[in-house]
């Protein structure tokens, strides 16, 4: 099975402080990498990782190699402006098509804009493959893909042909850790990270920022409760909950 994982987009340098929670792979990236590698262990095949971002995203692409993926590619992108996902999605789709045929394109919860499936939906559209969103569990059998997905009132079990793009929300993966051999190989001078794209910034931005927004805070008449230790504080909490008619 050929699995492609795309990681969370790395912001341009000037937006890094406002945007990026961590340098390198974040929790969501690690989660989806573990899922891909566990799937590879079960089904056989390869895992290719794509990281989208400016040239400094090469660091994240290299870190992905330490996890034992088979190939890690940097998809070079310049500035897009917040929310202009369509161009990122089209670039990613072209990069995936250039790399060859995959059975599963896998992504985690934290594509560019948080938990919206924006990037996943647009990438699946450009690749012309099914989108399976909010999957908690993936299985492959008889050339088909089976997913158990979050839905409004429960869990939906689906079947589709491959290739497909799966947006996974599976947490609590079987834990893996990078091993020494993969770490050494990832940072060896002879290990090159292939690059797709030119990193040219987009001049045309359909979504433009008008201004920053700060919600109006309603001043609260706050009451601070004191106590000498946690037991006393817990008693104060109990009293407040009784006043709120929550406890009998």
């Amino acid at each position, binding site marked *: 099975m050929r699995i492609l994982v795309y990681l969370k987009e790395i912001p341009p340098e000037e937006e890094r402080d406002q945007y990026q929670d961590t340098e390198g792979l974040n929790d969501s990236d690690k989660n989806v990498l573990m899922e891909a590698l566990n799937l590879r262990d079960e089904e056989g095949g390869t895992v290719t990782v794509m990281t989208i971002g400016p040239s400094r995203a090469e660091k994240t692409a290299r870190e992905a190699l330490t996890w034992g993926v088979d190939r890690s590619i940097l998809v070079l992108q310049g500035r897009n402006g917040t929310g202009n996902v369509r161009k990122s999605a089209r670039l990613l789709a072209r990069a995936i098509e250039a790399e060859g045929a995959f059975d599963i394109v896998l992504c985690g919860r934290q594509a560019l804009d948080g938990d919206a499936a924006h990037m996943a*939906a647009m990438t699946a559209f450009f690749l012309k493959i099914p989108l399976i969103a909010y999957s908690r569990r993936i299985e492959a059998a008889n050339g088909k893909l089976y997913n158990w997905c979050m839905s409004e009132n*429960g869990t939906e079990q689906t079947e589709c042909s491959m290739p*497909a793009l799966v947006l996974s929300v599976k947490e609590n993966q079987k834990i893996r850790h990078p091993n020494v051999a993969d770490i050494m190989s990832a940072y060896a001078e002879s290990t090159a990270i292939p690059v797709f794209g030119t990193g040219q910034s987009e001049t045309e931005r359909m979504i433009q*920022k008008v201004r920053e*927004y700060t*919600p109006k805070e309603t001043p*609260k008449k706050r*009451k601070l409760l004191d106590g000498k230790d*946690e037991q006393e504080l817990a008693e104060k*909490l109990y009293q407040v909950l009784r006043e709120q008619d929550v406890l009998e």
Partner: protein
Amino acid sequence: MERSRKILIIGEIQNGKPVPVTLELIGEGKRLASFTGARLFLAVAGSGIRGICRDLLRYPVDRIIAMDHPRLEPAQLEVHGKVMEVMIREQKPDIVLGGGTLFGKTLIPSVAAALGTEVMTDAVGLDIDRETGRLLAIKPAFDGKQMSVVSMPEAEVQIASVKPGVFQKSDETDNKKGNITMIPADWLEDIKEQKKTLDFIFEGDQKICLEDAKIIAAGGRGLKGPEGFELLKRFADRIGAQMGSTRPCVDAGWTLPEQQIGQTGSITKPDLYLAFGISGAIQHMTGVRAKTVIAVNNNPNAAIFQYCDYGIVGDAQKILKEFLEN
């Protein structure tokens, strides 16, 4: 000012009725239309929905554009996406609004991609620029850490998806001027099925539904790990609350995605909100519109204490343990 001529809402029907966010968007759409004199259209697609369409005329929409065909249920992205694309191309609205339900979050960007445009996702507020007449959306920038007002100044069709629970549901109207246009649907038979539903496990009352919860007990990083959330779950059960969490706790696998509250999770409007070990960062508090907030945090300078009615400075995990033991 460029006047908006037509606002179209992508409606969603589930289990024989419109989802709450569709009714919320009708209310907000009507408000936006009042600034520009635009007409308000509602697009819906499903199977056996003619009765639902007649019911929807109780709300202040000028026209309902509807498609009724068995292929439209259960909702499949490849079918609904094509239907909405066709409806939008035919109707030529300049503003399109959709609800960010689980299905809507995949449908609306897919439709935007098909139309060759972008979508302003996860909006928690909308307005019309009084000078330009363009749609303004308040949305998270930078992964929810900041918020911005954005617009699509050159786009032929401006599209925004809105988080459920942001707006109030529309009132019904006595003035039943609206009408229904049914669109032919035979061509849906030619759309190849991409995904088949094999089974549906209904979770009903067990389903976590933070948007409707009256009491929420939420935890953050201050609970330190899964053990802290086990205590919080017991506390929540004790007081009849739903349990929620901040995004980092979901990322760490301590809680489920459905339990996430905040800019990139659920918008909640409980009577009572208890925050244990939550710093009170803006991207979380944007999702909390509670009547009363009780905060427990061991950092006296935590932002959460600016939002609360009652504040307790202390170790959240230990206080929960003491509460449950006594």
